[in-house]
């Protein structure tokens, strides 16, 4: 029954077996066993996918669906399959010792988090405001990925600074939970629902009219997935890049003069939400900054290589290196992204000393870049 529902909802039954999905799949190009087309076929013929390790390897980047003439929502189809497999006790192989998944599940419990330690003097936040900055997992990621020098706190601070510059004094919530994106896409739907419900309640209680995120995944999850699973927020959900693009104030040149930058479209912001242009508008409006596009951009952009901390391995690393090479090839000095996960994955790939100069490029979050100029 579940399978029928999944096939129906994701239009998998429409599959024409043309194979364009597989042709564009970044994973399939590296792993000859993996094929989105055959995955759909096998599912339609009643095959057992739950015990297939590769079920957890799909990046859910959505590149396939961009090319699909039949409008098969392949990433969501995978999500359905994973959800069912999960219920049957199956799961993917967690990276980072499963710490991130464990943290997410811990956040479904009764907690009194102390997650606002990153707030510094000079950043204006208030108890109650129309605007809520949904920080997401940044404080946790800062700790977990400190070896990668992930500037989790800096992204959060930059977001508040940017909002302040826009004349907005946001509120931030001490007991905000993880948005649940990774649990959702891994198939752990129950725990996702718990997180979503807790967040929904907390946000509603805060009285926020507008929820700003600095993370592409938080954005898409709050804006699109919450309404589907636990009911939508009354408040408007907006990614910081949209806000900045709409209301960009007077900008000053960055202290560090930067000339050429390139931009990585996060899957959840671009292909999943259609927000291709706002980040670019922000970038081009920065004084002295030139945006050079990578060969594959916008809907054709190559994924950062991993999602939901699952089944990461050699193939993922190759995708990352490939994308970094592409970025470097533009001649840009800086690779800008609007999702902390993209940044983690690129930094992780580059932490390998053996990765050559042709794939080495500094990575910065869009909001950090923008805040420097505000």
């Amino acid at each position, binding site marked *: 029954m579940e399978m029928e529902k999944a096939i129906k909802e994701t239009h998998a039954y429409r599959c024409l077996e043309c194979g364009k999905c597989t042709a564009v799949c970044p994973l399939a190009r590296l792993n000859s066993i993996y094929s989105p087309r055959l995955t759909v076929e096998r599912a339609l013929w009643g095959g057992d996918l739950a015990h297939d390790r590769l079920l957890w390897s799909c990046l859910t980047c959505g590149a396939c669906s961009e090319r699909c003439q039949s409008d098969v929502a392949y990433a969501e189809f995978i999500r359905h399959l994973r959800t069912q497999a999960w219920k049957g006790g199956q799961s993917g192989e967690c990276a980072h010792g499963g710490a991130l998944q464990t943290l997410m599940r811990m956040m479904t419990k009764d907690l009194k988090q102390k997650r606002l330690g990153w707030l510094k003097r000079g950043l204006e936040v208030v108890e109650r405001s129309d605007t809520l900055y949904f920080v997401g997992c940044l404080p946790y990621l800062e700790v977990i990925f400190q070896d990668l020098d992930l500037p989790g706190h800096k992204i959060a601070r930059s977001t508040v600074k940017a909002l302040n510059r826009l004349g907005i004094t946001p509120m931030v919530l001490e007991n905000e939970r993880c948005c649940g994106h990774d649990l959702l896409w891994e198939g752990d739907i129950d725990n996702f629902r718990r997180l979503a419900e807790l967040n929904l309640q907390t946000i509603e209680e805060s009285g926020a009219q507008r929820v700003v995120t600095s993370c592409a995944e938080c954005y898409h999850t709050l804006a699109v997935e919450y309404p589907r699973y636990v009911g939508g927020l009354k408040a408007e959900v907006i990614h910081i890049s949209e806000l900045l693009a709409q209301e960009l104030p007077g900008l000053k040149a960055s202290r560090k003069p930067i000339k050429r930058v390139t931009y990585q479209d996060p899957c959840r912001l671009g292909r999943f939400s259609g927000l291709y242009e706002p980040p670019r508008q922000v970038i081009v409006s920065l004084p002295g900054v030139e945006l050079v596009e990578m060969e594959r951009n916008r809907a054709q952009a190559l994924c950062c290589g991993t999602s939901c901390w699952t089944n990461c391995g050699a193939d993922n690393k190759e995708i990352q290196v490939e994308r970094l090479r592409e970025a470097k090839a533009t001649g840009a000095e800086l690779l800008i992204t609007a999702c902390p996960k993209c940044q983690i994955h690129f930094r*992780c790939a580059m932490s390998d000393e*053996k990765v050559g100069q042709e794939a080495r490029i500094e990575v910065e979050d869009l909001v950090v870049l923008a805040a420097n100029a505000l």
Partner: protein
Amino acid sequence: MEWQEEHRQSSLVIGGDVAAARVALKLAQEGQRVHLVTRAPSLGQAPLGNLLPVEPPLLPELLAAASHLQITLLTNAQVTTVEGREGNYSVTLLRHPRYVDEERCAACGRCEPNCPVRIGRGSDGRAIHPPYTKSVPAAYVIEKRGTAPCRAACPIHQRAPGYIALIREGRYEEAWRAIKEENPFPSICGRVCDHRCEDECSRQRVDESVSVRALKRFVADWAYAKGKTAPLKAPLAEGPPVAVVGSGPAGLTAARELALLGYRVTVFEALPVPGGMMRVEIPSFRLPPELIEREIDEILALGIELKLNSRVEDIGGLLEEYEALFLALGAHRGRKLPIPGADLPGVLVNTDFLRRVNLGQEVELGERVLVLGGGDVAIDVARTALRLDAKRVEMACLESREGMPAYPWEIEAAEAEGIVIHPSRAFKEIVHTKGRITGVQCLDVTFMEFDEDGRLTLETRPGSEHLLPCDTVIFAIGQDPDLGFLSDGGLEVTLRRTIAVDPKTLATEKPGVFAGGDAVTGTAFVVDAIAAGHRAARSIDRYLRGERLRGEPFLPPKVELTEEEIAQRLSLGLASRRPRAQIATLPPSKAKRSFREVELGFTEEQARAEAERCLSCGLCSECLECEIACETGAINHEERPLELKVQVGSILLADAHELEDLSLPPETINAPSLPTPPPLTLRLPLEERDWRLDGEPRVGVFVCPCGGRIGEVIDVAEVCREAISLPGVVHTQEIPYACLIEGAESIHGAITAHNLHQAVLAACSCCSLDQICYSCSYQRVRSKVNLLRSPSFFEFVNIREHCALVHGDEPELATEKAKDLVASAVARARLMTVPLPKAQVEAWRCRGCGTCEEVCPAEAIKVREDGERLIAQVDLSLCTGCGACAALCPSGAVTAGHISDRQLEVTLEALLASPNPEPKVIVFSCNWKAYNGAEMAGLQGISYPPNVRLIRLQCLGRLHSGLILKAFELGAAGVLMLGCPPGECEHRSEGAEDLFKRTQALLGLLGINKKRLRLDSIPLGDGRLFAQKVKRFVRRV
């Protein structure tokens, strides 16, 4: 010269210290056959006699040497001679008995508390004890100094030291059992034995002998007062039929022993009552007849047929019905001197007189009785006569007062009752007037002597004739067996009118016919008759089994305590300084007119105080309590020194202390001390094989109660019940003594019968690896060597040190913990991994990033090109299994072999699944120092809270935030990371501090009190500190 080549491949290493073990290991690893010989009972005890536990860091090497298949370990052994020359030595070794089989002893410790003999100060230190904690081998040893003089002196080698030691402990029932081992007549011997034991007692060198006989009587009286029945059970009588003629002490003893061996025994008795001379010749004031009946009834209850009023006249006839015959006829025919008047009415004979009295028949006595004779029977006759209302009883004998054969105390008792003794008289005539006796005409004796055949040389003083007036004369000058019927039986009779036998075997000339007791020896004591019964039973058994007859069984040499030893035992309080207890008796004035028992026996207090006087000459009292406690049959008190010969090509002397007065050939090598090999590399001698399995595994759970060490605390049945409900478990079974070969065999049997893929053994072994570490023990190594030959994968959990020993005072919580541990092992077992603590790389997950290479302290993992990709590769010979690479691999491509991340997760899940007891605290410990601390806490019984669940990792560097967070996610109240003190890491890993801080930061973000996570360290082997730190942490959270 092929054999020489062969011997060149073998060596003898002399020494028992770590240096010797190291040399032996080295040679064995080079393929030599090694005999490792030490005079100590276990390895690691050098200098000899050191009873301190071996340093934990040295233990793995000792265990590796002891378990190496190429090494034969000979403990308690010394080199006596060396012959031959380099390349071909013939070495003679003397192996002293340990009395405990090294291969059968499970070191469960059941025996030790059962042993009544203290050998040191305080309550600890029993005669049976382990050489030291975790000794190698772990088999217990029995301290025997030799045969105690009392036991050596006793014709039946009674375990007097045994029952005395048991009385001292207030264990009368066991004491009774110990007496009954050799003596079917404790009440009787406790009253009338001539106790040669006391004559030999070493205590005489301090003051007076221990009152051994009275102690025996005390125990027998106690047992009968409590209504205890004989502790012996005869097997079904299916053996050949044996006839015993005579139901005296010799006959009944033989009957009992034969019945216990399974023979069908029939006893023939001429009289209407059984018991022989005990019943009819010992007066009831010395030996109440109801006691005799009781002891005889117990013997007959073994299934022996007794035919009363059955005088045997025809041996040939009996031999047609019975396959063997024991003639224990006794000596019931009293003798008279051939002097004038001996046949007068009123002249009685000892045996007739006593028999009539004891059987309640009428005896006519005059007022003035004269007993002729000076032996114990004469005294009995005189005292009996006194009680039959004779006005005046006197005794006369050939011997001088000092030369009287009766024991002095018997003579004293008689005199105390008013009996007058006339020594040194020769009897000429019984004088009478018209048939009425008026006295006995005597001469004074100046010299007398009996020769070997009983012939008398006598000199009297001329002219010393005088009359001892009396009206009744009773002869008590000895008695003979009634052998009239033997004349046509083909049996030889001696000059002394006894049956001729081989004194060692009691065999007569006629095959199948044996004889013993007074009929062979002439009048002797009950205990001699019992001895004859034992000897006869042994001979008859051997005869019927077609074996060559043999004499007495071996007894170790008699102990001669030195003055220093005696002084030491007194000063250590092993024997009290009190004087010998006096046995209460009826006052002679009351006693002499009644048949009431004269001697009253000890009170309980007296008995215990008297028992405390025993010097425990032989140390081990040979009470056999250890043998009874031991369920594995490991104990053999009869073990004897053994001479061994070995042929070796070379001899290496590792410890010169081992040699005494023996010089080795000059070319013998003094073993060089080898540099310390890292103990991490020591492994059990096992074969490599493939552990992979497809499909759902079938798991069996086996639980060892460890002879009660586990089973008396933990409800093993409940652990099994709980285990069978766990997913994947298809079989559970209690395995007594899993460390014995039988244990391993029954597990292997169950594995085959139930088609098991994996087995969980909950016992004392703790890791599923073949490594030998500080926490290992001889039993664990042996159990693993036995078990891991099976095609199944094993998960071992230690419910001994970690549950039973440490939480002994909280059995329910200890059981809960054992259930948790078993559940965690089952969960791990279902996720099969290679049982090696070595890093492994899952190729598809490896990003080739090199993080592993960076963190590996052993430089064992390197990123290398593999086709087009870079992939981490492990050099298994370098990898020490710390798992730091696995902990830090971002994608999880590296696993730490056994135990994998997933296995750690399911371990946590299983440990935290049950709510009992709440809240639970997880302790992650490194395999080396901290884990050893937990083991030691268990061994030393230093308790810590039972809600603690320990998870062992090869190294704390193996841990990552995910696992710690997982513990909190699953509800742990706290997580304690216990590692090595700084700079002491076995793996030289340094990851724990950073991990701790980072995880604390994450907990802080989650709003979880940071104090619920703690990083601490324990030095090696510190059980007390382990318990302390764990306790403190639990209190804090």
